[in-house]
């Protein structure tokens, strides 16, 4: 059952003299309970897609649905928590005001209690009554995240939620997202920071030039990131196996091989006197894969 369905979106922006084709047949689903990462370079159409889902931008053609409701219907956003990229809030109000305002927009009961709990979770309790114009960028992002959670949403849509955060802030956000996901919240977020996605996503969509070009689930990610293996073996004698083994310490050798060479190598070793001690996968980062895909 999909929480969000994006069906063949097209969008062209007109900027003074030139027209920019932002979306070119963007389609995908977000399934219940998953954390879906939306990965792509700047200008690939991530933000535009998210804005169409949030009805901030209207598509030229194609439709987006949230919970089977068209995104142009405001009711589709009732169970959605949203945080835009670089969120901006009325800066003359306090953090507490913002949470209470968000609560009232969703008609949340006992807003005060929930607001206090969220402020506590995001370590903002002491800034509750400070005006937002005095908040740092990281604090704004935290209060924005808190505001998106005030109504216990079923779906979280976050546009570059960790952009501009320091490593500690990132950790807090990631942990919070994992925790929310465990309690059943579906999360859809965009990012161009690959480690963030790699760490927490159950699925990744890669977009380029206004459409999704690849998608990976957790297993795919595991598979794709392993480009080869390192076989550690112990040899009783000094005899060369002709397998390009390197001695790493006395009697211990390592052999590096490509993914598809593994079986072949193992068989070769087993036919010799050497014994396999360990096999560890050689990982390359998602980033490299990402670049490979984009260059295809």
């Amino acid at each position: 059952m999909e929480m969000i369905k994006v069906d063949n979106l097209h969008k062209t922006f007109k900027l003074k003299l030139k027209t920019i084709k932002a979306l070119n047949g963007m389609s995908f689903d977000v399934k219940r309970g998953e954390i879906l990462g939306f990965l792509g370079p700047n200008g690939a159409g991530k933000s535009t897609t998210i804005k169409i889902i949030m009805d901030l931008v209207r598509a030229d053609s194609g439709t987006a649905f949230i919970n089977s409701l068209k995104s142009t219907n405001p009711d589709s956003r009732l169970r959605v928590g949203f945080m835009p990229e670089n969120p901006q809030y009325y800066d003359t109000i306090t953090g507490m005001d913002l949470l209470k305002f968000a609560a009232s927009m969703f008609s949340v009961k006992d807003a005060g209690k929930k607001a206090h709990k969220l402020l506590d979770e995001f370590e903002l309790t002491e800034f509750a009554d400070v005006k937002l114009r005095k908040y740092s960028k990281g604090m704004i992002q935290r209060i924005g995240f808190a505001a998106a959670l005030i109504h216990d949403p079923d779906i979280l849509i976050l546009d570059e939620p960790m952009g501009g955060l320091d490593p500690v802030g990132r950790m807090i956000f990631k942990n919070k997202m994992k925790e929310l996901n465990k309690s059943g919240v579906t999360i859809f977020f965009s990012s161009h920071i690959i480690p963030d996605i790699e760490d927490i996503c159950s699925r990744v969509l890669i977009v380029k030039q206004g459409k999704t070009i690849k998608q990976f689930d957790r297993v795919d990610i595991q598979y794709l990131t392993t480009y080869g293996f390192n076989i550690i073996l112990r040899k009783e004698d000094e005899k060369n196996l002709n397998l390009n083994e390197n001695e790493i310490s006395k009697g211990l050798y390592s052999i590096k091989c490509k993914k598809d060479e593994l079986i072949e190598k193992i068989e070769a070793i087993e036919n010799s006197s050497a014994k396999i001690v360990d096999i560890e996968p050689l990982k390359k980062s998602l980033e490299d894969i990402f670049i490979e895909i984009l260059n295809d």
Partner: protein
Amino acid sequence: MALIKLTIKHLIFDRIFLVLASFVLLFAFIPVFSYFSMRQLQEISITTSLTLNSFILLLMTLFGGTLVMWRDIERKYTYTVLSYPITRTNFILSKFFSLIIILFVITIINFAASIVVIHISASLYKSTLPILWLNIFAAFFMEFLKYTLLLGFIFLFASFSTSFFTPVFSTIAVFIAGNASQGIYDYIMKGSNELSHFSKLAAKLVYYVLPNFSSFDLISYAAYSLPIHIQSIVYTSVYFLLYLGAVLSLSIAVFNKRDFS
């Protein structure tokens, strides 16, 4: 409702807004100003009170309108607000009502201040004219309606423009044209027959399209205690409602089509 509350809260803590609001203090100078008059202190104080109110409302309308519409879009406050489960119609109307609530409160404050000020000035020199408080109130109220209509224009221009200048200057242009339309129309219609039928028709068309702000001007009626016909008030109010309805629904239609990217 929450959006109205938030908008008002946000506005009244804004620095520019506070500066504008402090213009209310200028009321204190009206008795001094009217003292320059030879023989019409009371009339001058009424005219000046209404003019000051009009001036404050004009600035509030221009700045408030741009703060609420242009800056919200510019600073991307709209991203958050429109992502809540509300319609854009609801958004525009909430913003609009927040501002007219503020304009109304300011008008009432100004009216209260003028009551004091006019009493002081009138006590300095006995005028031959009575003070008709109902006329004065009607004049204040009509000014409020006038600027509400002008606010509608800011919303209309801000709903399709991304720049700061377009809505402000277009609105000022509408304000001036709307003030002048009646006078120019009268001049053309009463004036010489040299003008061709076509240009008279064109003048008529422009006169119909532009907002007729002179109909909201009751200052002379208030200051010189002239009788106000109820019919004029009713007609102007009906005109106000219809015109505002047209302007606002057009703004909503435009705003509904807009992309926030």
